């Protein structure tokens, strides 16, 4: 950000950006938006494209709802929000189909499911409906990044240990030609490619995160 805009980043606004990355992470602490977070993490590039798509929908949705917040009748707010989000997702879907067709194919229905991603609806309800546009944008960016962070971390481990690659580059050597680590008997962990491993990875992430910040621990939960 340029220096002119510095005043826009007051302490409160900085908190809006940084909180969702750790203390109030949408996936691990608020437990929102898990549906898509886990399903698209087999490869890093899918995870990155998905995070960017969610970030875009989130920021634009927050901005639009925040601008319209005094006009939306409270009785039909859910339907209004769904329509705004659905329109944004259609834009994302068409752009993905036009420019990164392969990724769009492998994300399949999960692009459409951004509409029902609870992070987006949750932030629209909890923040954008009651706050000014600039704060809503920051809130959108923060939560979008917090979501992306989990996606990329999970995808990093899944792709690295599942297929020995990162973003398609062979890190551990080639498993078919038995080069690199494979030549001394290393093998890919096939479990990492299967859906349940992302749940277990997120559980481990939550464990580490809460261990480091004990204030997050909920003693009475089960």
């Amino acid at each position: 950000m340029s220096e002119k805009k510095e005043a826009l980043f007051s302490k409160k606004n900085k908190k809006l950006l940084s909180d969702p990355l750790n203390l109030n992470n949408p996936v691990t602490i608020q437990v929102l938006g898990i549906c898509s977070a886990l399903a698209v993490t087999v490869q890093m590039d899918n995870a990155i494209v998905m995070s960017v798509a969610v970030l875009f929908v989130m920021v634009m949705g927050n901005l639009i709802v925040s601008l319209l917040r005094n006009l939306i009748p409270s009785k039909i707010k859910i339907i209004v929000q769904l329509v705004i989000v659905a329109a944004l997702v259609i834009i994302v879907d068409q752009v993905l189909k036009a420019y990164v067709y392969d990724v769009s194919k492998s994300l399949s229905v999960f692009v459409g499911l951004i509409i029902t991603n609870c992070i987006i609806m949750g932030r629209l309800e909890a923040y954008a409906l009651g706050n000014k546009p600039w704060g809503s944008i920051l809130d959108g960016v923060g939560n979008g990044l917090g979501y992306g962070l989990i996606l990329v971390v999970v995808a990093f481990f899944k792709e690295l240990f599942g297929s020995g690659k990162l973003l398609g580059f062979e890190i551990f050597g080639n498993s078919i030609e038995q080069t690199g680590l494979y030549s001394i008997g290393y093998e890919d962990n096939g479990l990492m490619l299967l859906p349940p491993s992302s749940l277990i990875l997120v559980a481990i992430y939550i464990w580490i995160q809460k261990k480091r910040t004990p204030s997050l621990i909920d003693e009475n939960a089960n």
Partner: protein
Amino acid sequence: MELLKLFIRAAFVDNMVFTFFFGMCSYLAVSKTVKTAFGLGLAVIFVLVVTVPVNYLLEMYVLKDGALAWMGPEYADIDLSFLSFIMFIAVIASIVQLVEMVVEKFSPSLYGALGIFLPLIAVNCAILGGSLFMQQKNFPTIGHATVYGLGSGFGWFIAIVLLAAIRERLKYANIPAPLRGVGMAFLITGLMGLAFLGFLGFNI
């Protein structure tokens, strides 16, 4: 026979929760006691059975490439498939609203059981996911679509009731403090998912 296979596939092999992570948000939030899990599970089955066939008709007669041909030859080359997200979600939101009103009017006891969960369902990814997969799978008849909706709803129902039963028992377990609550629920779901992978071996 074919329909039975479809049902079993949708409920166990392609289980909504363990294979696609659909509806995880409400899955984790509402699985603390078996009773509420049971109510939400029933509501999901109910809404899926209604919305999947309705969206199937919408897809076949309005949205699909060339689907408008029944209106006359000049409409035959219209492709409205890019509108499917917004149409599906609008149908789901309004059907959920409608179902809520009908149930409230005719069966207050069922409404008492499902009541609070019905509005939640409009934003449950399992419902929209069901419709989007229906669109991908190109079912030949509306019967297939209905059975698919029933099967995937049933799979979701089993998953949430199982998790709730396990979490009720966890009260007596000594879990490391940082893992309590959400962390443990994730871990259990992961392990249950591993168990459900066993169904992949069935040849149906």
